[in-house]
């Protein structure tokens, strides 16, 4: 019997697997998918993009440690 807990975790795992699959397709095949690093580099070429990405990173640390 699959519980809500399992479904929730399955969703996270699917997102993670999809990310790994995209990165694999981008770096190991000729698929027209940019690598995550290229996407970040492109986004971070503008100040708003750079600050936005860095804030997102900082924000990721907050719910785990900060009150």
């Amino acid at each position, binding site marked *: 019997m699959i519980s809500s*807990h399992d479904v929730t*975790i399955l969703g996270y795992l699917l997102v993670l697997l999809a990310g790994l699959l995209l990165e694999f397709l981008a770096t190991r095949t000729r698929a027209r998918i*940019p690598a995550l690093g290229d996407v970040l*580099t492109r986004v971070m070429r503008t100040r708003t993009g750079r600050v936005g990405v860095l804030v997102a*990173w900082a924000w990721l640390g907050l*719910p*785990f440690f900060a009150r």
Partner: protein
Amino acid sequence: MGFLRRTYGTRLLRRRTVGAGPAGRVIMVLSGLRQPIVLILLLIAFFSAISGKPLDGLLMLLVAAGLAWDAGRRSREAQDQSSATKAGPAGDQSPAMPPARRRRAVLAVTWLAGGALYAAVVGSFSRYSWPATAGVVVLGAIVVLIGWSGPLRPRPDPGRLPLPGTALWGGLLVAAGLWELGALLEQPGLTVSSAAHPTISTLTDPLLGSHGGRTVALAVWLLVGWLLVER
């Protein structure tokens, strides 16, 4: 004399046109709201505040306001320059810094030594305590400020990215956010965790319960921050 007059005139023009007076500053901030990232930060601030994280919300609000003001100021400066000199459009690009190997080496050593010390020290504090909060918030703010001033070193432009492939990454990010938001909303309360619908922070509770786990998590967080600030 003529040079002085021109310089003074340019300064006066800038002062008069770029964010002159309180009304000008408000307009500047409002024009910066056109940036999607500012709206995203405002949404994060709102949801952080209503989910019992007022400090997170306040920090996000401050960054969003600063970014909106900065984007608005740059936009107006570009408009002024364009109308004054008929020059090409000035974008949001920050000037690339020249490569500085020494600076990079110093930065790398500082990051490695300081990062290990930081992770061990901050990891020794219990979660949600004020020392842990200060450790994460201060470091996050420093990194954001470093990023604000520009890239640490120039990176080759990856060029125009294929739109469908880039959209897949964007879609994945949105899907992850929505899944996490769904789990958050399924909780009994926004500040009450649920075993049936765990958020990512709930799932990491066992790992972050020990000093070693917190140290490893902080080290990974730092590593990601390093990779990002290097871009």
